Every structure is written in structure tokens, then in C-alpha cells.
């Protein structure tokens, strides 16, 4: 074997370096998440669709009557996608460090980077699923409105940001107390029923409505429906409340993470 000529490592600005790291981590995420399946990328769409199919078959026949304005599967899908944007950054956070421990030895990979990569990955896959969902809906003749695209985006993004903030908080907590990993999925289970995913808020009893409105997801899911489906009317939800929660939770999560970054780095 001839002696190899070593390559000097190129120098990059901190920003470029960060982009490179996040991109590499996202590609790595894709490789392990979908690489083991034959048509990995198909599961991007199939995963949420299967969930909708199962629930749709069970509850759809009853619930259909409560939403005459929208074909039920699309009513459901919109809610499910937003719910997924909330829960998946949290779930991805719990294992973000363990799954990338070996890679934190490289000096330009910081403990926050696996989290950012996973958050970005969840946002991208959901956006992709959403686009397919819109195309299929329009192809089937469902009327969609994009007049309130800003509201629609804010609904999705603020939910995602809240999920990311909670993800950071639980990610740090989980590094100290592993029990968190068991608790979070259990706590998430009722979300499907208390976030107006299956039924419109207006079909609930008035007393229940005022309680449910404490859940920011109810606001974003209902407003997104209102923005996307022209005939769907809402009363009560607003954007300010989930927006405020998103900013607060995200700031809390980042602060907590920053304060514990040394511990998180040493754990790897």
C-alpha cells in the first residue's frame, strides 16, 4: 500500500459549519429512518395515511355527520398532521442524544445539533405529507382555500415550535431522569381526543369547549381547518394564545438546554 496523502480539513465560518453539520445529521437521520425499507420515502406518506385509515374506518362513519362541510378523511388528516407536528419533535428529542452520541466527538457537532436536525427533519417530512395531501384533495375535487396561507402556516409552525420547545425540555430532563422516556408517550395518548382532531370543537358541549380551549392544539387545528376549508366555521380559537405558548415554551427549552449543555456534552 502506498502511503496515503492526508487531506487538509477545510476551514469554514461558524454559520457554514453549522449548516453543514445539520445537513449531515439530517441525511444521517434519513438513512436510518427510511434506509432500511425498500421504498423508504413512500412511508413518509403512508405512515400518517395508515393512521387516518384506521381511525377513519372506526370513527369515520359516526363522525362524518358532524362535519358535513368537509370529506371526513381530509378533516381528520389536517388535524392528524398538526398533532404529529406537535408530538414527533418531542418523541424524536428523547432519543436524539443517544442516537448520535458517537458523533458528538467531532468538535463542530454540538449537543443541540442532533435536536435541530431532528426538528427540521420532522418539519420537512410533515410539509411533504401536507403537500401530497393537498394535491390528492384537489385531485378528488375537495375545495381547498389558500387565501389565508399565512394563518395556515402559523398554525402549523407554532404547533411545531411548541413541540420543539417541549422536546428540548424533555430531552434535557431525560438525560437526568430516564423515566421521562416512559411517561411522555403515555401523556401524549389522550391528545387525540382532547385536541379536536376527531370531532369539530363546535360539536362538543359548551362547558367542554371552554375547557378544551386551554389546549393550544385546539386553537391551531381548528384555525387551520378554517383557513384551509372555505366552508368550515370556527368560534372561539385564536392565534395569539398558541403563538404566545410557542414562544414561551421554545424560549424556556432553549434556556434550559443552554444551561445544561456541558452536562449533555459530557454524557456522550
Amino acid at each position: 500500500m502506498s502511503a496515503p496523502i492526508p487531506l487538509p480539513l477545510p476551514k469554514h465560518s461558524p454559520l457554514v459549519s453549522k449548516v453543514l453539520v445539520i445537513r449531515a445529521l439530517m441525511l444521517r437521520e434519513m438513512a436510518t429512518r427510511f434506509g432500511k425499507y425498500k421504498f423508504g420515502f413512500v412511508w413518509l406518506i403512508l405512515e400518517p395515511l395508515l393512521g387516518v385509515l384506521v381511525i377513519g374506518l372506526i370513527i369515520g362513519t359516526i363522525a362524518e355527520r358532524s362535519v358535513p362541510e368537509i370529506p371526513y378523511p381530509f378533516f381528520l388528516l389536517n388535524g392528524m398532521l398538526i398533532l404529529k407536528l406537535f408530538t414527533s419533535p418531542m418523541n424524536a428529542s428523547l432519543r436524539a442524544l443517544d442516537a448520535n452520541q458517537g458523533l458528538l466527538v467531532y468538535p463542530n457537532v454540538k449537543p443541540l445539533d442532533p435536536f435541530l436536525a431532528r426538528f427540521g427533519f420532522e418539519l420537512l417530512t410533515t410539509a411533504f405529507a401536507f403537500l401530497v395531501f393537498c394535491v390528492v384533495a384537489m385531485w378528488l375535487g375537495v375545495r381547498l382555500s389558500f387565501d389565508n396561507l399565512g394563518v395556515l402556516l402559523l398554525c402549523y409552525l407554532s404547533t411545531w415550535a411548541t413541540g420543539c420547545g417541549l422536546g428540548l425540555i424533555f430531552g434535557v430532563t431525560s438525560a437526568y431522569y430516564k423515566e421521562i422516556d416512559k411517561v411522555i408517550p403515555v401523556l401524549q395518548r389522550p391528545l387525540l381526543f382532547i385536541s379536536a382532531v376527531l370531532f369539530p370543537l363546535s360539536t362538543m358541549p359548551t362547558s367542554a369547549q371552554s375547557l378544551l380551549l386551554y389546549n393550544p392544539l385546539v386553537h391551531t387545528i381548528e384555525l387551520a381547518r378554517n383557513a384551509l376549508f372555505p366552508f368550515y366555521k370556527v368560534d372561539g380559537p385564536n392565534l395569539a394564545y398558541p403563538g404566545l405558548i410557542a414562544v414561551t415554551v421554545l424560549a424556556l427549552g432553549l434556556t434550559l438546554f443552554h444551561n445544561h449543555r456541558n452536562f449533555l456534552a459530557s454524557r456522550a
Partner: protein
Amino acid sequence: MIELRQVTKAYPVKHGLRYVLRDVSLLLPDRANIAILGPNGAGKSTFLRMIGGAETPDRGTIITDRDISWPLGISTGFQGSLTGRQNVMFVCRINGLSPREIKTVIRQVTDFAEIGEYFDMPVSTYSSGMRARLGFGLSMAFDFDIYLIDELTSVGDAMFRQKAKAAFERIKKRASLIFVSHNLKTLKNSCESALFLRDGNADFYPMIDDGIAAYLDFINEHHTRGRANRDDTAESKTYRQARKLARRTARAAAGGQAAPSGKPPTN
């Protein structure tokens, strides 16, 4: 040159903190191969991770103008769920290498590692020797000024050790090593200077023999004190080795031809 300015680093243990460095200011010279000595748990690996930039000091700063590798060890640097190729690709990507450069790196790594089709299997399926081959091969592909080695040479078969030894010789022509090992003979062969870590202190010895002597004194003291507790095999092996080395050095000194310190012996 690596400069530590009032560096403090501790890691949490069950009750309280264990200090790796406690307010240490230090200057590690260029072009010196440095052995890191210290008892188990003194924080040798943490020290390497800090020098490599994977961890930051709790207080103080580490300043350097050199390109320093990440710590090369059997348990570091690779994600078990990814294949060898994916791991190598990751390192190339975070450094923004072009596709052509990536190809070169992959060829060099596969040439050095010689792990065949395991290159496309998850690293978690590797033996420790294979991990060492891959890790060594990967870092050899890049041009660093200082290589951080963490117990890398204690694994692998004779062929790998031979290869690693040759690679070390090549590296030493253009770069220096900071070397953690429990094998004092290996350290003596590869390093001229030593850094002795214990209880949050770091003492630099320009001549490795002085460092080893100080380390042996320390071990000696603790060994006699903790004789009842003899199950720490790694440490007592070091101790046996150390005694042998000390005897030999003493003999050499008595014979009037003290081991030429500063240069590694040739055997």
C-alpha cells in the same frame, strides 16, 4: 502549541463532582509527543475530549493554533447504528468536502482499514479491532497537526498493530501525538514528554522518564495502601509493568549508561 488558561473541568459522579482539572494553567509545547499518565478515572479521556473540542471547560479557556484531531479510540467517533461508510460520509459532510474528495477519503479509509464488506455493515457489528482499523484509517486520511490517541493500539491483531506502528512513524514525521495508554512501554516508545493527571492537577514533564517515575511513585503509594483490594487488574498490571521498567532504568543508571531521555529507545 496548546495553552490551557485556568481551566477547571469536573464531571458528575454519584455523590458530587470529580475534578479532571482544577484551575490548571499549562503550556503544551509543539512538536512534542506527549503521553498522558494517570490512574483510572483521573479523566484522561475527558482531557482528550476537551483538547479535541468535543467538550468545553467548566471554567477557563483552551487556546490553540493547531489542527487537532478528534480523540481516536475504540469506543469513540462512530455511531453504531450507521455503517462504516455512512460514518465516514458523515465526517466528510460536516467538513464540507467535495464529492471527489469524499471519494478519495473513502478509498484511503478502505485501503487502510481492510475490513472488506463490513464497511457497509453497521459499526455495532464490528469487533473492537475493526473499529480501531476504521477509526485509525479515517483520521489518517486527514492532515492534522496533533493526533489524539486514546488506547487505540491495545486492540486488534498483530497485523493491525504492525500497520498502526508504521502509520505512527509516518504521522510523527509531520505531526505530533497526544497519547493515552495504560501500556507504559508503548508510551515510552512513542512519546518524549508526559503529562501526569491526578486529583485535578496536571504536571507536565518534558522528559517522559521523569513523568513515568512520578506516576510510578503515585501508583506505588496507592498500591501498598490498597493491597487488600487487588481485583483492579488493569491497574495492577500497570503496576507490575511499572516495577519492571523502574528496575530496568535503575540497572541502566547503575551501569553508567542512563537511558537517553528525550529520545525513545529503539527496541
